[in-house]
């Protein structure tokens, strides 16, 4: 039984007071816990949280550096910048990427077809970097987005400097173009350095000199609220914000002469073909063109899927850089190289009269190798054989040299390997050899090297392949008598900060000193004869030139791979006139022949014979470069305010023997 309990007020009050003190003690403990926690947060870890709070509210906005200009040797600006408005997206701040992009499609600001690639690109960026999703908005598009801006968290309009090619496709095969940064570009750049950069060099000089042209992006700290929107009046919060201005990219100075380049491009208009013109004494590319061409502004603006498809699917392949990448048989343009090889190796005497009839008969074979026009050559020396481009003479010469000599000789002119030009993308062509053929073909019957394979190499047919750039490079070596300068498009870099130009020294890659001056004289005289002797293959086109031109025609017969292997008359004939129409015309030349300033290679695809199609083009390009407005030879052709200073001789030239003076060519008879 529990005792009867009576209320004891005195005891209860004392108990309350005890309890109150107890509660007070508990509260003090709790308060100490809170204060301890505050001490930890605000004193011990204050720095840590301060950094986090800065990360929250302070956004570092990159200021893209203005891309360096690209100038030609006359100071003409081929690639510049202009102000545009871009649409930019910050992945971190976009709640639903696909939804917002679809919405932009509905506003007409994006194309549905571009979305998959765009989403891939966005996802490969760092989530806090802004990604340009649409370049170069029109005024109407800017307005239409501005109205709906609040519907697109994380997407904003950003004014920036966009790449602009004022002359459209001028020298696009040399200059290249910029385009939006793709996932594959991101793999090999420093993403932090490209934060804020919309475009990157894709081809040509734009790609090769990306590092110099890009510059260094700056940054600006801005305050953003929790929605990522910039705070317009930061007030007291804005005191600590920093700005680091960007350093613009350096300007790149090209060896290209825009004047000559324009001539080359207008001559190629309507043709499929390519032109490369070099300065034999330093490797400068004076002009480089491929036709048909395209407008690089399409890429700089952010090409749409549809525009890109139409370029890619064009049967004439405007995006194909023929100057660097068209690998074709050289035709007869190879003959001077083979002749030099035969002379140097002592296989043949230049002045020996050789009876060359209608056709060459390979010893031990019934097969006849005809002249291309089935004409009769007659008694030929090396000189007349080159002037007339007598195939029979060179069938014999090739046979006498043999494939091993040929395949080890031709690389001396950088055939079958890259020339080393300072932009990416060139193809090496092909110098066939026994080893190559054995490795190349699967069919055992084809893996053996036949004497017939050698014979047709004599006229630049068969397996031998070269590019326009390689032919021009070889022509320059003929002009400079064996000096091998690395072809180059960029002669100098102008520092964006100091304005000072750092000139690049020409690079001498080799010197064919094994070729005797006498041999050079034979070949160069013969090549002059091509344009000055009535029997010369380019006489009718070039006879009225005011300066001597050394040239050589070529016709590349585009026969199928199988027919090339056999290269007999039957298969050739069977292809008929259709095939004949597809013959590509080559012409190589340097001028003035006695003191060469320019070496040119012209490819005119499907133009038939080299002399009719390609030679006049080469002539006009050389005229444009060499002649002044009065029609007289310029003392210093190609000299412009941004051409390399004349005292900048390559160091390697010091040991090279002086050139033998060539007897001035006689003026052609009318």
């Amino acid at each position, binding site marked *: 039984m529990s005792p009867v309990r009576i209320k004891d007020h005195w005891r209860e009050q004392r108990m309350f007071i005890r309890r109150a003190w107890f509660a007070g003690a508990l509260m003090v403990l709790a308060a100490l816990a809170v204060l301890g926690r505050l001490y930890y947060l605000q004193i011990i870890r204050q720095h840590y949280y301060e950094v986090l*709070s800065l990360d*929250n509210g302070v956004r570092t906005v990159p200021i893209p550096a203005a891309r360096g200009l690209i100038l030609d040797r006359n100071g003409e600006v081929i690639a510049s910048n202009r102000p545009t408005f871009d649409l930019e997206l910050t992945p971190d701040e976009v709640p639903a990427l696909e939804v917002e992009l679809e919405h932009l499609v509905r506003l007409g600001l994006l194309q549905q077809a571009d979305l998959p690639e765009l989403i891939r690109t966005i996802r490969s960026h760092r989530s806090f970097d802004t990604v340009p999703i649409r370049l170069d908005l029109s005024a109407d598009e800017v307005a239409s987005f501005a109205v709906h801006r609040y519907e697109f968290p994380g997407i904003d309009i950003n004014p920036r400097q966009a790449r602009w090619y004022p002359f459209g496709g001028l020298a696009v095969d040399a200059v290249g173009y910029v385009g939006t940064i793709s996932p594959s570009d991101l793999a090999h750049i420093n993403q932090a350095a490209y934060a804020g950069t919309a475009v990157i060099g894709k081809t040509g000089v734009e790609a090769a000199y990306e590092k110099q042209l890009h510059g260094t992006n700056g940054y600006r700290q801005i305050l953003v609220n929790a*929605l990522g929107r910039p705070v317009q009046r930061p007030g007291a919060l804005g005191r600590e914000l920093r700005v680091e201005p960007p350093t613009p990219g350096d300007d790149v100075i090209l060896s290209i002469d825009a004047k000559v380049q324009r001539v080359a491009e207008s001559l190629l208009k309507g043709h499929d073909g390519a032109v490369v013109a070099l300065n034999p004494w330093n490797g400068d590319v004076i002009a480089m063109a491929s036709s048909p061409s395209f407008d690089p502004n399409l890429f700089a603006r952010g090409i749409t899927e549809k525009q890109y498809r139409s370029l890619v699917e064009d049967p004439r392949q405007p995006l194909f850089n023929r100057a660097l990448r068209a690998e074709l048989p050289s035709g007869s343009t190879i003959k001077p190289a083979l002749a030099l090889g035969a002379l140097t190796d002592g296989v043949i005497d230049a002045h020996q009269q050789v009876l060359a009839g209608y056709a060459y008969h390979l010893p031990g074979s019934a097969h006849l190798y005809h002249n291309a026009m089935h004409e009769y050559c007659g008694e030929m020396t090396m000189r007349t054989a080159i002037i007339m481009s007598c195939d029979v003479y060179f069938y014999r010469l090739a046979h006498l040299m043999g494939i091993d000599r040929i395949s080890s000789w031709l690389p001396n002119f950088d055939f079958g390997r890259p020339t080393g030009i300072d932009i990416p993308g060139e193809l090496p062509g092909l110098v066939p050899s026994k080893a190559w053929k054995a490795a190349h073909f699967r069919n055992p019957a084809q893996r053996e090297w036949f004497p017939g394979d050698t014979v047709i190499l004599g006229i630049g047919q068969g397996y031998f392949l070269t590019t326009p750039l390689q032919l021009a490079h070889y022509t320059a070596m003929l002009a400079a008598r064996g000096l091998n300068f690395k072809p180059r498009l960029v002669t100098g870099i102008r520092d964006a900060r100091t304005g000072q130009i750092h000139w690049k020294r020409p690079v001498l890659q080799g010197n064919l000193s094994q070729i005797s001056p006498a041999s050079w004289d034979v070949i160069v005289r013969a090549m002059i004869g091509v344009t000055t002797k009535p029997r010369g293959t380019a006489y009718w086109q070039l006879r009225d030139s005011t300066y001597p031109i050394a040239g050589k025609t070529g016709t590349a017969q585009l026969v199928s791979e199988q027919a090339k292997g056999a290269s007999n008359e039957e298969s050739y004939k069977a292809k008929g006139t259709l095939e004949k129409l597809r013959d590509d015309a080559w012409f190589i030349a340097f001028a003035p022949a006695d003191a060469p300033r320019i070496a040119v290679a012209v490819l005119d695809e499907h133009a038939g014979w080299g002399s009719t199609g390609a030679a006049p083009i080469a002539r006009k390009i050389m005229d444009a470069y060499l002649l002044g407005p009065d029609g007289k030879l310029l003392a210093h052709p190609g000299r412009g305010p941004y051409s390399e200073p004349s005292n900048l001789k390559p160091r390697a030239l010091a040991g090279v023997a002086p050139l033998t003076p060539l007897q001035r060519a006689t003026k052609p008879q009318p």
Partner: protein
Amino acid sequence: MIHEEISTDSRTRRTLSGAARVLLALKIDGPLAVGLALTAAYGLVVLYSASAENTPMLVRTLMRLVVGTVIMLAVARISPNLLRRASPWLYGLGVLLLLAVAAVGHVHLGAKRWLDLGPIHFQPSELMKLAVPMMCAWYLHERPLPPRARDLGMLGLIILVPVALVAKEPDLGTAALIIAAGAVVVFLAGLRVRVLVTLVLLAVLGAVVGLRFMHGYQRERLLTFLNPEAHPLGAGYHIIQSQIAVGSGGLFGKGWMAGSQAQLDFLPERTTDFIFAVIGEEFGLVGLALLLLLYAFVIGRSIYLSMQCPDTFSRLLGGSVALTFFVYVFINAGMVTGLVPVVGVPLPLVSYGGSSVVTVLTGFGILMSLFSHRKLMG
């Protein structure tokens, strides 16, 4: 010095006695009123910054403070006897209103808490914050203390019936506060420590079971408390941002209106439940310590006043007002600094919003009534 004291003595005494007379007439405790006024004033200064200079918000808060003060003054004049006798009726009314809310309540932000009474929205759960401790104190008033097991059962029922209704709304924060308000009465009544420990253990057990019946977001909040970094942009966002705000404030803070977390909207609910973090960011540890000192003064004074009360009802109810106020402050400060889970408990007298200001001031009105009428009780 002595001379000076004597010379000014008479005047000082006259002035003081004049003020004291006024306070006596109003049944007001001067120091407590000053403490509350200072806290509220501090709160207004902070709210001005936290609301981004939102004057209408400030005016509304001022209005509520005025209403709360008027009610406080009115309640202070009511005799404690009347309060005691009214307790069961008030409690009954509260339970009925909660049932009404469950039946026809107004849904706002996914929770059914409000009763739409024409121009004013009324949260019956706010009433229960006062009615439950009153009911508990009323129940214990006539009974010998410490309470026996049967009494505890009865008290448990008194507390848990409204708590269950509030928790169903769902409003866990208020439910917890009602439990706290009732529990402190039982604690002050002299509940044996053994029993107390047992009850705490039972509560923990209940919480574990309760977790299984919680709404998704309620469970989320609790789990988030245990590991906030697991969902930096999800449910952990509140805790992370408030800790950044408090931590980055440092010793002296970033200055009034210069807290980037608060001013740039990174701190969620910065005018209401998380206003403590705004103080921490803009006024630093010093500012928070000042606030805590004000609270300590108010609580200490309240306990002192309760101790002076002659009868059980007054002591228990007064102590409950003081301790409940402390619980508010502790839960809010603990929540903002990451010591306790995020439960929607406002910082008393500082947080912007609704009926809480009025409830708090009404509580202090009751306390003042209990104290100022003590001589009449006998």
